[in-house]
Structures are given as C-alpha cells and as structure tokens.
C-alpha cells in the first residue's frame, strides 16, 4: 500500500465523519468550500494547466447558477435535468469565450475575461424579465434522489462531497490523458507544441469548454444549496478570489486547488474574531504565503517530507555515532 492510498482513505473518512462534529453553520461553510473547490478546479484547468489567465470565472459560475435556478423555478424542470442543462449552457459560453482566447494571451486575455465576468453580472442585474434583476431568483428547490429529498444540509453536504470527488477524479483522468499533456505542451511552448502535431486551437477550445462546464456545475450546486440568487454573489471580487484559490493552493495541481479553496474560504472564518481587521489579515496572509511559498501551499508537502526525512537521518546519524 502506498502512502498516497492511505492519504486517500484518511481524506474519505474525514469527509464522511465531518458532519458529525460540525454545527449547522460550520456544515454550510464546508458545503461552500466544496462548491468553491469545484470552481477552483475548473479555473485550474485553463490557468494552471493551460497557462491562460481568467479573471472572469464568476461569470461562468453565474451562468451555471442562473440557468439551473431559472429552469427549476420558472419552467418547473427537474433539478437534475436543470443541473445538466446548466453544465451544457455554461460550456457553450466557454466555447464563445474561447475564440478571443485563441487570438489573445497574457494581459489581453485577462482583460477580456474581466470584461466577460462584469458583462454577465450587469446582464443579470438588468435583464429583469429573465433573472429577476437585483431582487434575484428565490425559492430554488433542492434536488431529490430516489424519492429522498436532499432538503437537509447534511444530505447536501454528501452530495457536494460526491460531486467534488467525482469531478476531481474525472479531471485527473482527463488532464493525465493525451489531451492534458497537449494542454501543458501548449502552455509551455506553443510553437514547439504545434511542431509536435498538437492542434493548438482544438486544445484551447476544449480546455475552455471543459473549464466552463465544470464551473457551471459548481454554479448549479450553489444555486440549489443557497436557494436564493442575486447578482451580488458574482462580483469581480469572487473571480479574483477564485484566482487566489488556484495560486495559493498551487498552480497546476488539482489537490492544491482544493487546498487553496479550503484555505481562502476558511481563513476569513477563522479570522472572524479579528472583526474589522479580518480582511486586512486576509490580504496580509495572501502576501505572506506568496512571499515565502511561491509554489503555493501544495509545495509545503514536499518541503515537510524533506524536513521529516532529514530529521530522521540526523537521528540515525546520532545513533551511529
């Protein structure tokens, strides 16, 4: 049995047992951590593996959330079907945004994605006939499974946990396939990648569609969890925060994304005792992590391991002496 295997077993056990020790509010926070982990994973596909900066992921999140919410509330569609529709519609938006991404890179792409996120938010505010404007959409139903209603936060927690693990596994398979290798090759050197016969256009388009679809999934889960949407939940700050989650966790690492999402989402909760200072401390924490761990929190793993092994060898040496 490898160490990774036991780590996985441990994570699953903790995930299963966590609701037993958490109170209602803490459980809701953990559900949000799960949803943001999915969103962070989706951004990592294009930013971490594809090297394309997106500061508009709240836009995809919004499209997924509103699609699922509007379909279930206004059209009475089954929440599961609405969830799938949300993934497809958001993936379509990803397809649209991938065309500028083919032509632009770096800051130019970053600005386009910022513009995309803001456009989506302004449309959600102003297209009242569809989105309910600033009033938003309320009374979004929770889905049910085999006739069992997922009304309780406990049940929804497990749903999000299962979806997160499934997304993680699926993305891992995809990113370690030919496509994933192509994507990393395109990130590292477009010219060399195209010389190796990689279709750069197709690779980038697929990456955007995949990323958007997963973000739409996160959005739909969010809509059915909080059961009330308004445009304030999809600001530029959210896009920036998701970006921070990717980088702080460790860019180009799926495990890092979950770590980053958990850290960035939970840190303000732990800092709440600081009251007015807490965002101040949050900003400071971001600066400090990047200052001392430019590879993100996930790079802490190998550092600790090295530290432990160094500690044990020095002990052994002392014994020898």
């Amino acid at each position, binding site marked *: 049995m490898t160490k990774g295997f036991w780590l996985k077993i441990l994570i699953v056990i903790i995930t299963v047992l966590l609701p037993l020790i958490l109170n209602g509010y803490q459980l809701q926070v953990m559900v949000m951590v799960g949803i943001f982990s999915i969103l962070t994973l989706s951004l990592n596909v294009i*930013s971490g593996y594809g090297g394309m*900066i997106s500061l508009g992921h709240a836009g995809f999140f919004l499209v997924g959330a509103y699609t699922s919410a509007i379909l279930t509330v206004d059209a009475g569609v089954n929440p599961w079907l609405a969830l799938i529709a949300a993934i497809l519609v958001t993936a379509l938006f990803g397809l649209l945004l991938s*065309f*500028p991404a083919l*032509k*632009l890179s*770096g*800051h*130019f792409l*970053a*600005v*386009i994605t*910022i*513009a*995309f996120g*803001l*456009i989506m938010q*302004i*449309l959600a*505010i*102003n297209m009242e006939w569809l989105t309910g404007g600033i009033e938003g959409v309320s009374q979004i139903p929770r889905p049910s499974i085999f006739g069992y209603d997922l009304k309780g936060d406990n049940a929804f927690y497990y749903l999000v946990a299962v979806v997160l693990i499934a997304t993680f596994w699926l993305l891992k398979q995809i990113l370690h396939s030919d496509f994933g290798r192509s994507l990393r090759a395109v990130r590292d050197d477009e010219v060399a990648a195209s010389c190796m016969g990689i279709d750069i256009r197709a690779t980038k388009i697929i990456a955007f569609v995949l990323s958007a679809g997963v973000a739409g999934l996160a959005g739909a889960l969010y809509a059915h969890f909080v059961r009330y949407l308004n445009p304030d939940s999809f600001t*530029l*700050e959210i896009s*920036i925060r998701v*970006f*921070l989650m990717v*980088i*702080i966790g460790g*860019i180009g690492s799926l495990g890092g994304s979950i770590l980053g999402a958990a850290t960035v989402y939970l840190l303000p909760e732990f800092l709440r005792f600081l009251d*007015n*200072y807490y*965002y*101040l401390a*949050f*900003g*400071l*924490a*971001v*600066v400090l992590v*990047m*200052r001392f761990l*430019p*590879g993100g929190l996930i790079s802490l793993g190998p550092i600790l391991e090295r530290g432990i092994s160094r500690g044990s060898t020095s002990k052994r040496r002392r014994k020898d002496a």
Partner: protein
Amino acid sequence: MLSTLLFSGIAMGCLYGLIALGFVLIWNTAAIVNFAQGEFAMVSMFFALTGLTMMGLPLVIALIMGVVGAFLLGLLMERIAIRPILGVDPLSVITVTIGLQILFSNGAKFVWGTQPFVFPQYFGTAPVEFMGLRMQAQSLAIIVVVAVLAIAMHQISQKTKFGKSLRAVSQNRETASLMGINVSRTIALGIGCATGLAGIAGILMAPITFVSADLGLPLLIKSFIAAVLGGFGSYPGALIGGVIIGVLDNLIGFYISSEYRDVILFGLLIIMLLVRPSGLFPHHR
C-alpha cells in the same frame, strides 16, 4: 450638453490614463502587473482629506501631502513586498499585488471607515467658457494638468539620467546593470513614480467623486483596460486608451443606456481586441 459630456469624459479619461501610465511604467520596468495601482489614487485622496479636515492644513499643502504619501507608500510596498519576489513566477507576483490590493482597500476602510466622504471643490461648480465651449472648471484643470504632466514625463524620460536609466532597465535589466545603472534603485523609484502618478490622479478626481475606500478596484479595472487598449507597454497608448474609455463611458451612458453602459463598453473592447489583438499601439519589448 455634448461639449460638457465630452470634456468631462476626456477629463475622467485623462485620470484613467494617468493611472494606466503608472501601471504600464511598473510593467515596463519591473515586469509586474500591479493590481494595487488603483488603491494609490484612493489612498492619496484620503491623505489629502486628512490633511485638510483633521490637521487643518492649507489645500495646496494637503494635496501635496496626498501625492507624496502615495509616492512613499509605493516605495514602501516595493521594498517590503515586491523586491523579495522579483523574478519568481509571474502568477505569484500578480497574486502578491492582489493581496496588497485587498490589504490597502481594507486598511483604508479600517483607518477612515466605510462611509464615503465629500471632498471640497477646488474651483466651484459653475461651468466656465473656454474657446466657446462650456465645461466644468475641474475638467479643464484636469486636462491641463495631465497634459503638462505628460509633456514633463516625456522630457524626463528622454533628457534626464533617471529617465534614461528607466528606459534602459525596461529594455534589458542585465545590460542596464552592466552599464553601471543601479537596477533595483531604478525599479524602486519607477514604482514610486507610478504610484505617485496614481496619487496625482487621486487628488485631481477627489472633488468630482466621493472619496471612499472602495474606489481602488473600479479605477484599476478602467485603467487596466486603458493600458490594454493602448497596447500594454506604450505610454501615449495608455493615455489615449484612458481618454477613449472616459469619453465612451460618458457618451454611451448618456445617449444609449446607462444600465447597459458597461456591457456596451466591454463589448466594444472585446470586439476591438479581436480586430487588433495587441491593442491600438502595439508595443514590442
């Protein structure tokens, strides 16, 4: 009406351009995208306001205090947060500046509170006639100051030793240091100048906006767009990009739709970048 709108658009655009100019200056010299750039405009307004209302200083002194404050804060930021990470992964550096942005805007909230303040007018609100066109005195002042600054900066960059060092460092850091230029000092001063420019933009816009801790991020976005529109690297491009944004902002908001103003503006931006992927004035490093 049109001329007033046009001029206030140009004036606001000049300010976006001025902030964008600093943004591009930092990018060119230190290869850093400074997400905290907008915060320096905000901070300088608050410094000036503090000098004016709490310390009872004369207006001019208070305004100078705002700009100098932004300049010094920029130097401090460079020394503490930026210099140690120069040269690591660019995404990590962006993240640090995002962290600084959060730090500054919430620091300002902590020091000055979340309530917006009204800054006193410099000239009164009556419109003035200039070459047969009606405009706000403040707009005219902004346009004149920014034009003078632009000319002065061009002169500094072409004629002085500091300006030449800045240009050398942005072309090639290693070669510049071989030529005896103190690279890290040049970068520090470049960043200080950039944040000082944002500070000047701040005190110029203080009378025409509410002074609040939330101003930084929207200003950053507008000036980021201005810089990109201008080719991200070109100084005249940044100014012109800013003016385009400012004017379009006003005209679309008044003549087409104030609700969809930003949608149209950003839509135009996307279309423009699809047609000219490297901005209006492509800049080759």
